[in-house]
Structures are given as C-alpha cells and as structure tokens.
C-alpha cells in the first residue's frame, strides 16, 4: 500500500523531477523485485520502413554465487529473419517464403557492444543454439567477457542495435502500415540460474522468461503518433525533425513493450486505484466501452480476489486490421486485445482476451515463471482465473457465448478444446517438446485451467483462494517453479496433494468415470417346499433391506409392494484416479449418495429396496470438469427420448425448410465464393 500511494502521485512527481533526461526516477521507494536486469534505451522508429535504431545501456547484477564469464542475450526479432530460423522451421507451413517478401522479414543486428570502460566485445560475440543446434537460428547471442563478473558484482554494457519489424505482425509483434506493435524488440539478457544461463531460442511455441529490473526508455516517433508503452510516461520532448520523444519509466518489470499509431483513439478511465488507458483503432471505437468495462472489471476483480496490483496504470492496445497476430498478448502494464467490427455483444471474445491478458499481469508479471519450460504456471493458472472471473461476473451459463439459443460458458469453452486432445503429453515439459502445437495449447491452457477448477471443487473455494493468494504472496517478483506451487497447495490445504499434481502435471493420464450399468430386478417371493408354511422370509428380507439402506428409507418399505435388488456399476475408464461421488435415485424419489476412492477399475453398489433405480450419476454436482466424458457420467433406466425428439424435430424442420429454399443455399455458397 505504501508503494501505491507513492505511485498515485508518481506521475506528477516524476514529471517535476525529470527536467533533464538524466534525472533519477523513482516509483517505489523500496524495490519490489531484485532488479537484476536494468535497461536505459533510446529508440527511434522509422514509421515508413518499420525500422528501429536503438542505443541500450544494460546494467546487470550478478546475484549468483558464480563467477560469470559470458553473457547471453535474446535477439527475438531474428526469428523472422529468414526461412531457416528455428521459429519458422518449427511452425511448419504457417510461415512460408510465399507469405513474406524480402521487405517483410524482421531482424535485429547488434552493431556494437562495449563495456562501460569502452572495451569492445563485438569481435567475440557469436550466435549459439542451445536448444536445437540449428546454425541458421540467430535468436541467442553469446558474449564472452574479458573478465568474469564476481558474485555480487555488476556489469554495464553499451549496446547499439538496428532492427526491422516484420510486416504484417507475426507472433505478437510487427508493423502494418502506420501501426506498430513493438515487442521482444531489444537485445535482452537471459536469466542466470542454477549455475548456467537460461536463454532459450525463440520458438514457434512457448514464450518468455526474464529477470526484473528498471526500464528507462525514450521512444522517438513521428509527432502525429500516439504511443502506449509499459510503465508511465514521464515526459515528452518535441524534436526539430518533426518527431517526438516519449520517455517511459517502469520499475520492477521484466519486459518492456510499446505500440504506436497516428490512428489510435484514446480513452481513459479509472478502476479502483489504477488508471486505464485504452488505445482503440478508429474502426473499433464503437467497442471502446466494451474494452474499458472489461479492463475495469479485470482490475477490480483481480485486486479484490488475489491481491494488490502494484502498478499505477494499465494500457490496452487494440490491434489494427490486418495485424491480428499482434493481439491477445500480455506485457507488464500493457496488454493487447482482439476484436472484429460488428462482433455481437453476447459473443464475449473481446472481453475474454482482455480479462485473460490482464490476468497475466498477476500470473507471469508478478510471478515470473519460465514460460518456455513451465507454461502451465502462468497460462494454466490464468485460465483457471479466467474461468472464475467469467463465472462470477457473467453468470455460470452462457457467459462467453449466448447466441441463437446456444449458451456456452468459459468453462465449457475450455472443455471443448481439452477433450479434443487430452492425452498426448504431460503438462510440464518444454514448449517445443510437445506432441504438437495443439497439444501444447490444450494442456498448458485448457487442461491446466480445468485441473485447477477441479482442485478448487475438491478443496473448496475458500481453500483454493488461500492457495492462490499465498502463492502470489510468497512468489511475488520471484521465479516460481511447478514444485513451488505444489508446496504452497500442500501447505495451505494441510493435505498432501502430490497424488493429484503427479497425475495432472507429470502424466498424460485421462480422467473418465462412467456409470456403465444399472439394473433392478424384482425379487420373487420365496416359494417351494422349504417355504410352504412361511411368510417370515419376506419380513426378514425387509429387515435386510432396512439395514442396508438406512433409516431414511424405512418409511417407504411397504410389505405389499414388490422388492427389487438393484445394482449400479461405476467404472474408471481412464488411468487418472480421483475420488468420486455417486448419486442413485430410485423411482419412488429416494436418493442415495455414495463415495468411492476411484482406485479400482470398477465398483458395484447393490441395493435391496421397494423401488427400482431411476438413474445413477457419478459426479452429480459437476465438480470434475476434467472428466473427458460427461455424457457417460449418468445412466437412466428409461431412454431419455423427449429432449432428443425435441431437437430432432427442430432439425427435421430446419432441413425441410432449407431443402425448400434452394436460393438460400445458392446465396450462401455464392457468398462464400464471393
């Protein structure tokens, strides 16, 4: 809270302080993070050629106990340099030579790199390929040092670079005409941990990992341009050449992105103590309220639910038409959205993107996990948060799609993806090692989100909330790993949940429980020579029944009614073991609940009652969205044909009507062709 009060007045304060560009800016009196990688960057955009010329001063602190002999840098823009980069090769057919003409490729070149003492490091720098040995990939630069950096020591480097943005944007960044989304754009140092550099190449799948620091970035663009960037704008300087330099300052962030366009239309509002700035494209202005409302809801919900958002502002960028690839991405205090003109209000995809991307300002920007190695830690947790927020803000049904009688919730939306490919990989593995891009997405986002929702239903919402808050509290501005989350969950819940996480995260086990059989058959009265003079057996039978079903059903036992021996067989069809509940409903309305640890392949429950089974349902309260087949969770005595007939009669009518309207078909086909 101390930080926030300072931040609120930070803008004015810093403006007053920064009379010269060398002034020291301070938002947080006490650093929130270790501030290992700190950047001062001057960058100039040529808005016609989409090139950048930059001068970067990096101050890097060695917080390890090792002597560091070399540095490694990400040069992400080189992923778009040629058709042999690992990114392009990984993407298979999605990026091809045909799509990109010579002028459209992107790149970054380090033109000089010197130490503070003026020693030139450029002659020894070279590209390395730590992941795949692809010599054509130039996304990681190794810079040997003349002298090692001692533990606790620091180094200051001056790096000049020139870069070109891909056009149109590819995979989060690039330019399109007057619009530019400038992300992963500067030489960025890797993370030194566990005695080595963690500096992965830029792959088609997987995202980023970086240390926190302070960023002072001066962005020079044409004066007509509007700029949105990470951090806060502390000054603006008009230059004689018709450009303006925007000075942005950000503390305790691990990345810096910016966007610019003369066509942006600016909207500003406030949510709790956070200023929200939405930069809309002109053709989406009529959706500005949707954007702003979603952003305000996101800020308020996350602060109220998970804890303080320590930054003063949030900027939402609306990507330009034809630049869709720059949408739906998260950066510290800046997110990119996605929409299309005319999208119906009850198709809440723009809201979903904004809520999701803002969520990353918690799960990734406050807890800076390695997105390439453990994507689930931010994407999965964030998807879980997204499911919660949609459920809480827009209701449990139809909260993402409510059109033409079809209601789909965010939970169902995620299940739809999940059941398509649930079992190709374990969740925890390097992004590029997944079976396919689909498997990476399904497991990192959908399965992880549904697994945490299942865990919430198992532990209770309050406990889950405590887990999330504790995780955020303990790992704020640090680099958590999977085990750290598990440890927090175990500690907060007071249970050993390793059995759950082992199956969810480290195996490809599928969860599917099913009621495979129900049966009720009447028990004939005992007849024959042995029972010729006895009616006692019937009452004995009733006694047995009472004993097995409990007092609640005693009243229903009627000697004159038939007695049935009923059974329910529940099977575990997948290898994922999870405790489940079973509900058995009898024709007289009686209901029985059973618990099963789910360990065996199957279990059979038997009842002797005065009524037949009407239906039986495993997981009757829908607590296990991870179950890949919900239809087989229940079994009814009679065929449920009424609902099927209702929809099939509608279907029949729709087909009849369509057959009778050939002009409709021709018009649709012509429209598609046109």
């Amino acid at each position, binding site marked *: 809270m101390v930080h926030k009060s300072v931040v609120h007045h930070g803008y004015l304060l810093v403006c007053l302080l920064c009379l010269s560009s060398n002034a020291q800016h301070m938002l947080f009196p006490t650093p929130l993070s270790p501030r290992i990688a700190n950047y001062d960057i001057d960058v100039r955009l040529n808005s016609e050629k989409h090139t950048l010329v930059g001068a970067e001063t990096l101050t890097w602190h060695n917080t390890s106990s090792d002597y560091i002999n070399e540095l490694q840098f990400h040069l992400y823009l080189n992923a778009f340099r040629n058709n042999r980069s690992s990114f392009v090769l990984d993407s298979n057919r999605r990026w091809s030579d045909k799509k990109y003409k010579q002028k459209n490729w992107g790149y970054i070149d380090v033109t000089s790199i010197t130490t503070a003492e003026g020693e030139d490091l450029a002659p020894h720098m070279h590209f390395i390929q730590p992941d795949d040995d692809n010599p054509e990939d130039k996304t990681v630069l190794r810079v040997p040092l003349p002298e090692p950096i001692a533990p606790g020591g620091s180094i200051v480097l001056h790096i000049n670079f020139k870069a070109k943005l891909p056009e149109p944007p590819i995979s989060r960044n690039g330019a399109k*005409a007057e619009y530019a989304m400038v992300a992963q754009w500067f030489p960025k140092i890797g993370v030194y941990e566990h005695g080595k550099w963690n500096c992965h190449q830029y792959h088609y799948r997987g995202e980023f990992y970086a240390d926190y620091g302070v960023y002072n970035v001066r962005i020079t663009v044409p004066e007509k341009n509007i700029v949105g960037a990470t951090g806060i704008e502390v000054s603006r300087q008009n230059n004689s050449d018709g450009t303006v330099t925007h000075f942005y300052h950000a503390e305790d962030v691990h990345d810096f992105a910016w966007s610019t366009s003369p066509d942006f239309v600016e909207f500003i509002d406030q949510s709790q103590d956070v200023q929200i700035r939405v930069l809309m*494209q*002109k*053709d*989406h202005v009529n959706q500005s309220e949707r954007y702003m409302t979603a952003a305000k809801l996101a800020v308020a919900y996350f602060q109220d639910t998970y804890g303080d958002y320590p930054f003063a502002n949030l900027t939402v960028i609306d990507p330009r*038409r*034809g630049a869709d690839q720059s949408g739906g991405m998260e950066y510290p205090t800046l997110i990119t959205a996605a929409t*299309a*003109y*005319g999208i119906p209000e009850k198709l809440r995809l723009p809201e979903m993107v904004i809520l999701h991307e803002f969520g990353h300002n918690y799960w990734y920007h406050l807890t800076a996990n390695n997105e390439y190695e453990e994507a689930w830690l931010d994407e999965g947790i964030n998807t879980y948060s997204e499911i919660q927020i949609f459920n809480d803000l827009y209701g449990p049904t139809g909260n993402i799609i409510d059109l033409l*009688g*079809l*209601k*789909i*919730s965010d939970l*169902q939306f995620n*299940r*739809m993806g999940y*059941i*398509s490919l649930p079992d190709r990989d374990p969740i925890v593995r390097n992004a590029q090692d997944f079976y396919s891009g689909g498997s990476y997405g399904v497991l990192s986002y959908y399965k992880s989100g549904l697994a945490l929702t299942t865990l919430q239903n198992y532990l209770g919402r309050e406990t889950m909330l405590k887990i999330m808050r504790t995780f955020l509290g303990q790992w704020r501005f640090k680099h958590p790993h999977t085990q750290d989350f598990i440890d927090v969950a175990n500690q907060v819940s007071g249970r050993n949940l390793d059995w759950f996480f082992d199956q969810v995260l480290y195996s490809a086990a599928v969860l599917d429980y099913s009621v495979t059989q129900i049966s009720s058959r009447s028990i004939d009265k005992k007849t024959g020579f042995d029972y010729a003079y006895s009616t006692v057996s019937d009452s004995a039978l009733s006694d047995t029944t009472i004993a097995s079903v409990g007092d609640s059903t005693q009243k229903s036992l009627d000697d004159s009614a038939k007695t049935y021996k009923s059974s329910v067989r529940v099977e575990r069809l997948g290898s994922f073991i999870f405790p489940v509940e079973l509900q058995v409903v009898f024709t007289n309305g009686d209901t029985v609940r059973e618990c099963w640890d789910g360990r065996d392949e199957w279990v059979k429950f038997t009842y002797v009652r005065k009524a037949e089974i009407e*239906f039986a*349902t495993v997981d009757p309260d829908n607590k296990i969205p991870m179950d890949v*087949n*919900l*239809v*087989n*969770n*229940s*079994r*009814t005595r009679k*065929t*449920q*044909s*009424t*609902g*099927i*007939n*209702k*929809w*099939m*009669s509608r*279907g*029949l*009518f729709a*087909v*009849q*009507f*369509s*057959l*009778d309207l*050939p*002009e409709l*078909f*021709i*018009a649709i086909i*012509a*429209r598609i*062709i*046109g």
Partner: protein
Amino acid sequence: MLSIIKQGLARMWAHKRLILFFYFANLITAALIILPLRAALNRFAGHSQMADRLRYGMDADLLIEFLQYSGETIGPILLFGLLAAILYWLLTLYLSGGALKLFASGRQYDAALFWGSAGRYFGRFLRLFLWSLLVLLILLLLPQIITLLQRLIFGKDPYEYITYYSGFIRLILYVIGVFFYLMVFDYGRIQIISSEERATRKALWRALVFIRDHFGRVVLLSLIFALTGTVGFFIYYFIADLLNGSIALTIALIFILQQLFMLFRAALRLTGFASETVLYQKYVMP
C-alpha cells in the same frame, strides 16, 4: 395481378394432391437425413441424464461431446445429407415438369399426364439448368462490382466497417441475383412446356426476353410469393415460440405446426408455378 394469382390459386387447388407429392418428397428426404442423426444421438446419449436436459434447451457439453466422440458417424451422415439434397433437387425438378404441364393444360388431374410429363420434360429441364448456370454466374459476378467500387474508393486497406457493410450489400445483391435467376429458370421451364421447345438455349433466351418485356409484372408476382412465404414464416415462428415447452405434448404440437407450415410452403410453391404459368400464357399466348 390479383386475378392472375386467383387463377393460379384455382389451378393449384384443382390439383391439390400435388401439394402432397411435393410435401412428402420434402419430408422423406429430410427424414432420411435426420433419422440417422437421431439414431446416433440416441445411441450416444439416450441413456444419459444429459439427454433429459435437452428438453429445456441445447446443452453445450452434450453437443461438444457428441461432435467430438461421434465424428465418425456424423461425417458420413452429413455427406449423405448433401447427396440427399441433390437427389431431392432432381426429384423436385422431375415433379415440376408434371405440375407445370397440368397447370398449363388447364385440365383436371390426370396421373398419366402428370407422370408422363414429368418424365418427358426432365431431360430438357436438366439441360435448361446447365445453360442457366451461365446466367447464374453472371448474376453472381455482379456483386463483385461492390468489391471493385470499394477498392476504387477506399483502396486496398479499407477500414473494417467498410468491408463489413460492403459485405452486407454484396449479400443483398447475391440474394437479388438468385431471386432473379429462379425467375429465369421458372419461365424457361414454362416456355419449354408451353411451346414444346426442345432447344433449351432458345427457351432460356425467350424466358429472359419475357422477363425483360414484362419486368414489373414478373417481379411483382415473384415478390408477392416471396413476401407471403416470409409472412407465413413469421406467423409460424410466433406460434411456435408460444408453444415452446419441455413436455412431450408441446413438442408434438410444434412438430404438427412445423409440418403444417411445410404443407403451406408446398402449396405456395405450386401456386407460384401456376400463377407464373397464367401470367406467361396471358401475355405470350393470349
């Protein structure tokens, strides 16, 4: 125009059994597509509690899982549906020969004349259809003028709302084009029957000339039938919405209403054929 419609209605009513021919052709084709789908859904979820939820509305989980786990069944059904739709179209083309001949002759229903004419003109109608595709192609290319205009006025990179609304205008033009094409095809068939024309190209040309010469009347007649169909649909929809329920009785009532509406559609279609025949005869063979 009213007298033409009255005469058309009278001729249709004189052959009202044709309504049943067209209606049952439509119903049987649709049933052939839907019944396998119903069987697949029943097999997949018939004994699940989730199927019961369908009484109250579409259940997204059920829909998602049905599509995911019954893909091998649904694919062939959809393919079969496409095939059935083509066969249905051929069947109605076949039946239209008999119907138009009866309407043109002004005679009472005669099974031999109906079925004989259906067979007699089918080949010519098919050839007429193939020639008429040229007309359709031209009509479908017309909306591309909007694309060209858009390119000329707004360039290669127009704002999204420009492409959005120009898409709407194109769609309207497509619908108008198809509407016009169906008129051409109808009058082409009437021309073949009225003049026993074997050269279908000539029939097509004469149909075009007829439409040009009597454009206002022809369009007005088609519009009246199109609007009557639309009004009928809204009346159906209004009543169906009132009846919407989750019990077997309301579901059955809606089914009956749907089939009544389809009977109305079949009658409307035949009245349209008959009225077009009357109009043609009035001005070409007075």
